[in-house]
């Protein structure tokens, strides 16, 4: 089960769709972990002939299947940060008519979306589909440090060590949700962490 139906939420929270194959002069597909499943579903031989797939496995075993799609160019890398220079170069070199497909975790999609928008890709040419982990990319509002792949609420800021609760307030600019000190009014009273949607 790698599709998750997000509950109704506040208006800053992004909404994701379902990838569909579109006409394009070229296709850039970026995914992490279970996002590979969405790429496997959307890929067509015609698309793959003009496709560049960038994949961050995060321990999942989809690489062979993605390679078997025979995209014109394939990359697998250890993290978004490692993949970013290649992604930026690809976006910079993009011609009119590029279609962008993003799939996987919110953190990956949010960051790749920003990179694409900054490169001037029209947002009507960018699609997203959430798959796999519902972990969040969190900004600590106090120290401003980002903690990737946060699975529990509350959690400990990986930079300043404060106990933070996970808000639904989301910044597209930062591609992150906001984390706020949970025990400011009662120091040391930190509830047992639970999964974010539990």
């Amino acid at each position, binding site marked *: 089960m790698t599709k998750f139906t997000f509950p109704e939420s506040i208006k800053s929270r992004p909404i994701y769709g379902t990838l569909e194959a579109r006409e394009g002069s070229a296709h850039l597909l970026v995914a992490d972990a279970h996002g590979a499943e969405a790429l496997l579903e959307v890929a067509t031989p015609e698309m793959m002939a003009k496709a560049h797939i960038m994949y961050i496995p995060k321990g999942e075993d989809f690489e062979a299947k993605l390679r078997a799609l025979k995209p014109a160019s394939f990359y697998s890398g250890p993290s978004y940060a490692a993949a970013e220079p290649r992604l930026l170069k690809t976006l910079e070199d993009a011609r009119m008519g590029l279609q962008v497909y993003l799939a996987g975790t919110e953190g990956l999609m949010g960051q790749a979306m920003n990179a694409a928008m900054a490169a001037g890709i029209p947002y009507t040419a960018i699609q997203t589909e959430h798959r796999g982990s519902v972990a969040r990319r969190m900004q600590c509002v106090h120290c*401003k440090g980002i903690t990737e792949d946060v699975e529990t609420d509350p959690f400990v800021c990986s930079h300043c060590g404060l106990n933070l609760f996970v808000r639904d307030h989301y*910044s*597209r*600019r930062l591609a992150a949700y906001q984390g706020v000190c949970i025990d400011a*009014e009662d120091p040391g009273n930190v509830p047992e962490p639970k999964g974010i949607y539990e």
Partner: protein
Amino acid sequence: MTIQFNDESFRDDYSFYNSERAIKRFPFPFHEDSYMYSVNMEQHRGGPKDSVYEKRFDVDEHYVSEMRDRALVLADDPLRCQSLPHMTLAGWDLLELIMVSKSEDYPDLFELHRDGNTWRWINKPLGIDDTFTFLDEATLPYGPMEYITRQAQGDFAVLDQRDDNLWMDAGMVTTQADWSLDFDIGMNFFEWHAPVPLAHEKGIFVRALKFLLNIQQGAPARRLNWTMTVNPLLDTSPENYHKWGIQKTTLTPENIGAKQHLRVELQTFFRLPRSNALVFPIRCYLCSFQDLMTVPKWGRRLHRVVRDLPVELATYKGFIANRPMMLDYLENFDDGLPTSPGIWPDLETEPPLKT
């Protein structure tokens, strides 16, 4: 009239205080005995003499000390003042609006002398006398928005208008009711309001945005908003919440009258001429419960409003835990008599508290 500026602090020893004049002109935000969110906007075309509505940008006894507090906040955290690259022109628009308004409305305190693009700005309370070239950033010590908002009380959000929406693309935010400019910058009207309870469902933000998009140059608007703050702390930022949050737990029945403050924001909206941006000054006024209680009408009304406020609002505004203690205090100032409509103190006509 000349203003006596207080020498006071909004942190540490909290020497902040309101003079009798400041209490009388405090913008009490409740026009009736209950409160709910609404599209409470009206034209900003002056108001009763000496009220906070009279001038375009109210300057009061707290001016000099508030500007000192702002400088301290910025020295600690420069991210409280940000402007996306396309907002520089709007910054000049804002600088012009404030300099022109203040020099016309308070000629004894501020002077603006313009000779073409060469401008001389004199700010007597802060001891500033600068000459610069309008629209040339290199001639000011800061960007135009930062320069002028270091000399103007209240926070400022500067909104770019495009795609039938407003975008928070610049701001100076050091006296905020617990929201982060650094987090919200770049968001649109619905996104930055996302955390507010109940108002989206009531259609308030859709109607409010429509109103704002149509604001014309020279026809500013205003509204009041409010929350509660323990101690006269201006910088109730989320950034520093892990430091100030604990102060909410220091209230006792003995100190609540002095420590608990009603925090009111006079929010105004001005269209800017060159950039077509909208500027949203958020001016914060603080008044302790005990000072508010010197106005019988406000004593009666504040008790009723706090008592009947929906739980969602008291929670969002961060005083749900302290509400019972507030009510124990406030009920002593509510004798059950009716109150006159409107926000003004009506000291001559409202009866004193029955004991």
